[in-house]
């Protein structure tokens, strides 16, 4: 069953057609990679999914209902979490408080006037903070201001924040960009482990090593259009992909 279904989505910025009749289906429980050259419209597509952008036309259905015109916070509450290309975290706050905010959002919903209890006295939230920070190996730094983390750690923190919300669909925008090889491999292992829990993932990535290590299905985007979709082996063999994306080079 497809969890996310994108049908005939178009988006233009002035004269530039960023998304051109995009059709995409992400099946439940799979890791779906979206690849393509720079400027192919990958990030624009993610922005449309999370409600940051409203497509000019077309349909975006998640879990059976339309996401068009739904507010970004409502989309998240319905079960879509996104890890951004540049980590979006709360830089001035400690790791612990960074974790508490998504957990509170998950527990209490989009708005709750909870101003007479102590944030650090909520055992359920604290337990989960511990669990998810431990998951990405950051519990030891819980009292550190998150802006002082390395880029890799910031990504891990953001990933932990997204995972803590128990999302149905996790969107990852270049989760290993700018990482050293060892860090990349650690991230692949982490993502594999997350996938094994049955969380559906859509992942944008340039690093083919990451893509072929994780993806069960791949869509190739070029100039705002999905040119091929298929199993990793099919994508590897596809002459169309080589031409558009790899410029004829060997994978």
């Amino acid at each position, binding site marked *: 069953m497809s969890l996310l279904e994108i049908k005939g989505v178009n988006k233009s910025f002035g004269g530039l057609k960023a998304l051109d009749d995009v059709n995409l289906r992400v099946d439940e429980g799979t890791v779906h990679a979206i690849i393509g050259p720079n400027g192919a419209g990958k990030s624009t597509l993610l922005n449309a999914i*999370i409600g*940051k952008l409203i497509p000019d036309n077309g349909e975006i259905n998640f879990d059976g209902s339309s996401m068009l015109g739904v*507010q*970004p*916070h*409502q989309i*998240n*509450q319905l079960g879509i*979490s*996104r890890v951004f290309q540049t980590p*979006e*975290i*709360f*830089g*001035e*706050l400690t790791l612990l*408080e960074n974790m*508490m*905010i*998504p957990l*509170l*959002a*998950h527990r*209490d*919903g*989009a*708005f*709750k*006037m*909870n*101003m*007479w*209890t*102590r*944030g*650090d*006295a*909520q055992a359920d939230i604290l337990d989960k903070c511990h669990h998810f920070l431990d998951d990405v190996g950051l519990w030891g730094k819980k009292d550190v201001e998150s802006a002082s983390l390395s880029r890799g750690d910031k990504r891990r923190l953001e990933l932990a*924040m997204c995972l803590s*919300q128990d999302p149905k669909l996790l969107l990852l925008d270049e989760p290993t960009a700018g990482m050293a090889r060892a860090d990349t491999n650690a991230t692949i292992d982490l993502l594999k482990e997350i996938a094994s829990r049955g969380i559906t993932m859509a992942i944008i990535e340039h690093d083919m090593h990451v893509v072929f290590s994780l993806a069960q299905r791949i869509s190739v985007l070029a100039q705002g259009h999905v040119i091929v979709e298929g199993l990793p082996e099919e994508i590897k063999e596809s002459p169309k992909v080589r031409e558009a994306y790899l410029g004829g080079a060997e994978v």
Partner: protein
Amino acid sequence: MKATPTNTSDMRMVLIFSVVVLLMPIWLQPFGAAYPDLMQKFAIFGLFAIGFNILFGQTGYLSFGHAAFIGVGSYATVWVFKGLTMNIFPAILFGTLVSGAFALAIGYVCLRRTGIYFSILTLALAQMSYNLAYSVLTPITNGETGLQLSLDDARVLDDPIKEGGGIPPTNLFGLELQAFDGLAGFYICAAFLILGFYIAMRITRSPFGSMLRGIKTNNNRMMYTGLNTRPYALAAFVISGMYAGLAGSLMAAVDPLAGAERMQWTASGEVVLMTILGGVGTLVGPVLGATVIKYFENIFSAIDKSVLADLYSFLPDGLADVFVTVTGLFVGKGWHLTLGLMFMLVVIFLPGGIMEGVERIRRRFSKQEESN
């Protein structure tokens, strides 16, 4: 709720804060500031700054129009004095609630924008309120004269005129604010300051406080984390508006009149200075900032040439004249110059305000202890 270690350290902070505030009449004496009029100002403006900090320091929205809520609180309070009773309890309650309602309306409009546009919107709406208070709202505000009590007021719950003639004094369930040479008024204001401090601390430590800091730090992440940021920011705006309203009500309680000049933009700017000077986002900082500024306004402005001449009388005549002339620029009417210089020094060397200075000194001492 179980008592966590942080919880007890917070209670200790409230306790120390209370003791310092309540003992003001004693420890302010060497500074020449231990008279009720000034101490009331410390408490009232401290309250104003604490509330302002919830919006500016925690949520990151810089309002340039918070004096409007002071004005609304004052007018509403004086109207209760005129119409109902001279007991300040219902008057303050009413003043605070009306300010809250007013803040809800203003905040709803201004929070459609963020950053500099939000600031400009609040400034515009506050100046509009100020001008309205002077002109078309004269039936409510009594225009330039300001809203005052008179012998013809209804005061349906009290006698409109006290025994022996004259307007009855403001009181809290019979305790006159002018009693004990005005100390009663100060202690009532101080009690509200401590209560306001405690509430602000609870808000800071609560999940709601975390949300406000989240909005300040990364509003995008908040949205994509499933949080509706508008009502959170609006709640912070209303709470800080109510603090300002309470401050305005207390001003009217200790001196029962209300004028539009309290709503002017300079008053809105002053609370921004107080918060930055003391330490944005800290709990104690805004109170400190308010105290320092009000101290300078009242003490430095009262120093004149003759006081300076006395101070330098030990110097030879010519030299003393030079000293008097130079330092004379910084006191009396020139107190703004001192304040300006101090503000610049703090912002340049201690961007976190006086509280950052305190923190640095504390850290240095604790490091020395470790190395010993």
